[in-house]
């Protein structure tokens, strides 16, 4: 066991875990941030997508040892104050989720795109979102919702 300090959703958190433990397990099983999901463990499904210094990354393949005390981790729980990120609102508006299990990963992946590219083309959205699987088949609603949320004429205030 070893002690690690992590910056998560704006707070400093300490965990005592075995070296080499994946960041995903630290978040879910040790810190109770269960909005980030386990789907494959090999960075193939994207259900565990979080932001590391603003970049979308797969928490399942990051080891806690490799995260510095300065790096900022954002999970779905920290994406917005009151679940009111424009994408979260648009997601509800368009009734995107079905089972919902992959949706934290989808939203975190999409939110990172919007930070860097507020007006992506449909092809840019598809490419950016390609790494996050959805078995229920909500892809078309995800696509449409990101498009609507990033279109200057429909963007909510």
């Amino acid at each position, binding site marked *: 066991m070893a002690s690690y300090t992590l910056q998560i959703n704006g707070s400093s958190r300490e965990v005592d*875990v*075995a070296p*080499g*433990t*994946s960041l995903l*397990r630290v978040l*879910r*099983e040790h810190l*109770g*941030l*269960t*909005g*980030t*999901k*386990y*789907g*494959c*463990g*090999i960075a*193939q*499904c994207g*259900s565990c997508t979080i932001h590391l210094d603003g970049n979308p990354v797969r928490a399942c393949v990051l080891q806690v040892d490799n995260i510095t005390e300065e790096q900022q981790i954002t*999970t*779905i*729980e920290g*994406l*917005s104050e009151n*679940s009111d990120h424009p994408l*979260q609102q648009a*997601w*509800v508006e368009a*009734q*995107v*989720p*079905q*089972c*919902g*299990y*992959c*949706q*934290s990963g989808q*939203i975190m992946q999409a939110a990172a795109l919007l930070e860097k590219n507020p007006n992506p083309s449909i092809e840019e959205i*598809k*490419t950016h*979102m*390609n*790494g*996050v*699987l*959805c*078995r*229920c*088949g*909500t*892809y*078309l*609603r*995800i*696509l449409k919702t990101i498009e609507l949320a990033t279109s200057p004429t429909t963007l909510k205030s």
Partner: protein
Amino acid sequence: MLFIGASGLLPNFLSCSDAKGIQGNTKKHDITAWVRITEDGQITIYNPAAEMGQGSMTALPVIFAEEMDADWSKVNVEFSPQESDIYGSPGWQPGTKLMFTVGSRTTNSYYTVMRNAGAQARHVLLHSAAKHWEVPLEELTTGASEIVHEKSGKKISYGALVPHLTMPETLPDFTEGGLKDPEDFKLIGSQIPRTEIPEKVDGSAEFAIDLRLPDMVYGVLERGALHGAQPTLTNEADILAMEGVQKIVPFDHAIGVVANTLEAALKAKEALDIHWSDAQATGFNSQDIYPEYAQMASAPKKGSAVNEVGNVDQAFRTAAKTYEADFKNDYVYHAQMEPLNAVIQVAADGQSAEVWVGSQQGADTKLGIPDLLGIPPEAVNVHLQYLGGGFGRRSMNDFVLECGRLAQEMAPKPVKLLWTREDDVTYGSYRPLTLQRLKLSTDAQGDLTGISHCVVGDGGNLVAGGTRNDHYAIPNQWVEWREASHGVRLKHWRSVGHGPNKFAIEAMIDEVAHDQGMDPISLRRKLMADSPRALATLNKVAEISGWDAPVSEGRAKGVAFVEHGSLGTGVCEISVDRNTGKINVHHFWIALDAGVVIQPDNVKAQMEGGIIMGLSSVLKEQITIMDGQVQQRNYDDYPLLRMQEVPDSIETVILPSAEHPEGVGETATPMVAGAIANAFLKLTGKRLRHLPFTPERVLEVLNS
């Protein structure tokens, strides 16, 4: 008539929710076993079905609220207790009451139950108001959460009636009369957002995998890659010496390890040194089995009859022309995004258990735990959680029993059992591999006179469903199943037999149309002459897809019809990369008749999802087995459809209907293979007859 107590519906049987701390006007009072209300009018309706993304958490309460005349803005929804005597539906089998979310039958089997229960709740409120005002019940009417006595001009909200709630001696059975005229529906058929979606966009929706309890320990199992093999552990002492490991629990099919953290459990799992026995599947090679299946289909002895209409032998003897082809499909895996898991706590004395699980429920509402522990069903409390996908996999309780066994060993510590994705793939329970031999006959006018459909494969109903053609006027029909068995684990997979069987039927019909130079929709119009509802879906989809309009160069459209409770016809537009063999599906159009539709937008979502899952399975998915060993382990070697591969659009038109609601969750998926194969035939003149249509297979067909 239902009587107090006997039905368990009236609240004197249940304890009113009087948990300490709940006071005053937020205290919940039972109206019936299905619904609670606070003095400030907040209504909690119980959903008896599993929520796996199909929307039961909204659809069933909407039906209830409709008849109760509840103000929907004040409705909250919770899972009902898992007690089938009270919350089960007789919709599966008259005389039984089951809680079972399978077969796309939730709305279908609960529609009348929820309407009656909602009307009964309204009756309790009317009865209470009548007593309170000392007026005849018959003089009262209801609006949104409000009772009105027009004669006196009195009005009272449902919430304000709480202090005056009195229970009638009996509850009328409104299924005999007294339910709303569907013309008067206000909630059913309107656009109502799904109740559980807000918690699915901020990570707060709780799945069983998210549970954390004090003193909880973690369990994992190593089950090997040969289904049915028995393990012998050869390094038990080494494993027990590993940090965090608490116990080794042997199973017939696996070795279980319990540890104080998930990472310690997984590390120990990796270190297990297991000798595996042979099993029935030893020596089985899935991709080499088809010639044997074809021989079985050719054997003179018939298999088990699944359906027989007229005399198909005679139809073939007198036919002007016959057509014959074999269709094949490989194994596919559910790939629900939440791997199987459960959390179970057995009491120290072993006499009770708490179970947290995402389950599609089952004939045993307590999921086998009472039998496992040797305790009565009422000693097991099942806390149903959201399901991170079901698709049929979560109506099998193997994982719940595994967790129960671990929890029994670790009592009173709660145990979280987790299947890794590798466990979930390799020890999956697949949609069976089959071969289907179809024969069609036509008479001198070219009309279809007979269809013979022989399914060869393992799994009985799993492979034989979806073979009937009740909406096609083919006078002579014969369906049979010839059994093969390999010891590979099998299970219902969204749309079950309909996937492979509708593919074969719909592709075969287009082969006849192609041979006759006839338009595939025109041919189906003839076949559907006696089935106006099916025909209406065909005509509507022809219209919205622009079937008769010219298609861009290099593209073609294909059609397929499916009945799975609801009736639907789908049309797709595809192109093919002739260098790589990759099929691109550009558009899908569906016309659907599902009877009364509770939530139109959700039905469209089910069509979209059904098509996407169909595309994924039809174009990409394949479990293969070599010498009994499952060859796939994770999403890298079992790829699913991704965002860049989706069609530009999936458009659904719902046909209006006042008929009883039919399921919609499995009507779209089985359209996909037939529609693509038929578009491919039109585009290339070649026939796709083996699922999945991987680029390699498509190239082979193109070059044949």
